[in-house]
């Protein structure tokens, strides 16, 4: 079984206008840089994007926002992007803000074949509006539905030709959850190796969840808040 494809352009070529995409990463950490570049070049539009954040003005999903490729953004925190805020306040961009744990668990539910989950996050707030509430053991919980995404696009550190993935450090974040949740999952990796070279005990995402894998290139890995100590 070989899931290797040539590059990002090939990986995303059948993504159509109006589709729903998941994009891994937390801030700019662990984002699928090559695939985002390819999506910007390809020009596909009216996308619904599910991602924890919306990038910054000139990097990550921010690049897609500038080209007005995103119709709706589903995220938990969008504080670092002026163009995003402008499109939101002007009504050009539809935005659904959801709690970060809810976002993660709705991905997980999709990958685990569960239609919905119950979480206390958002009870008593505007997040609860229109949602079913259930009481378990004296505490209220919201019913949150599993995501339904056409494509999930993730970034891993290492991957093999069968689609098994290993992430590095906190660049893991949403990537393994989204990898499980896409109808079609695209993985870009820093290092692609033949099947058999990765230790089965160390795999984070089993290849069954991954449909296409390619070796990425020219990773910029931009740091949002370079914070250092001196002593």
């Amino acid at each position, binding site marked *: 079984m070989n899931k290797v494809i040539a590059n990002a352009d090939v990986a995303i070529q059948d993504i159509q206008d109006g589709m729903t995409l998941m994009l891994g990463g937390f801030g700019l950490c662990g984002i699928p840089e090559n695939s985002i570049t390819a999506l910007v070049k390809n020009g596909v539009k009216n996308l619904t994007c599910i991602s924890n954040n919306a990038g910054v003005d000139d990097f990550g999903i921010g690049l897609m926002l500038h080209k007005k490729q995103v119709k709706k953004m589903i995220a*938990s925190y969008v504080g670092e992007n002026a163009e995003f805020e402008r499109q939101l306040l002007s009504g050009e961009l539809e935005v659904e803000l959801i*709690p970060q*744990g809810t976002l993660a668990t709705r*991905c997980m539910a999709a990958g685990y074949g569960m239609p919905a989950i119950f*979480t206390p996050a958002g009870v008593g707030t505007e*997040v609860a509006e229109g949602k079913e509430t259930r009481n378990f053991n004296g505490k209220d919980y919201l019913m949150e539905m599993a995501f339904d995404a056409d494509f999930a696009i993730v970034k891993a*550190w290492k991957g093999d030709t069968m689609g098994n993935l290993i992430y590095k450090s*906190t660049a893991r974040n*949403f990537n393994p959850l989204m990898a499980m949740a896409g109808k079609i999952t695209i993985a870009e990796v820093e290092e692609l190796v033949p099947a058999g070279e990765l230790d089965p005990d160390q795999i984070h995402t089993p290849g069954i969840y991954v449909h296409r894998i390619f070796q990425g290139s020219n990773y910029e890995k931009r740091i949002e808040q370079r914070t*250092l100590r001196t002593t």
Partner: protein
Amino acid sequence: MLDKNGIAKRIAKEFKNGMYVNLGIGIPTLAANYIPEGVDVVLQSENGLLGMGPFPFEGEEDADLINAGKQTITTLPGSSIFDSAMSFGMIRAGKVDLTVLGAMEVSENGDIANWKIPGKMVKGMGGAMDLVASAKNIIVAMQQVNKAGQSKLLKTCSLPLTGVHCVKRVVTELGFYQIENGAFRLLERAPGISIDEIKKATEGKLIIEGEIPEMEI
């Protein structure tokens, strides 16, 4: 009156040996600088790290290793890394012993607002709603009075809520409060702050019983 570091110092005194602690962005993060001598706590960063270490030295920063505030950080001996679902799983399951976060408003019944100012600021709730809905022990670090001189310890929050009936304690530039039975019980005064100043700066119900000690920080 306490500055940000003063508030962080007072909060750090609540850290007890063996606690797993989640510190929010801003003043709460500063509390990591004041962990008392001999107290061993493990810091959780909700982007998927237990055992958050200090900021890296120049040249040692790693784009793949950040905290929830997107700052470059380091790991420590015994650190572990996991995905975002597990991170909020341990929060939801009550494994994290103490959560410290910032707020724009807190009400006398423990409601908190910290994620949205309609028409002005829409950054999102990030992990705050998950944290406040599940943490057993929440301390809020905040300014008690805004720039216009208005109290932010209120009868009822005016901004969209992050969570209801969840805040247990509040540390501000003026005092340390415990929320109980629909009121702010004053536990300690900030150095040099009078009871009158605290009364003026508290819109919600305030309980002051007996002699109120000054904070030791």
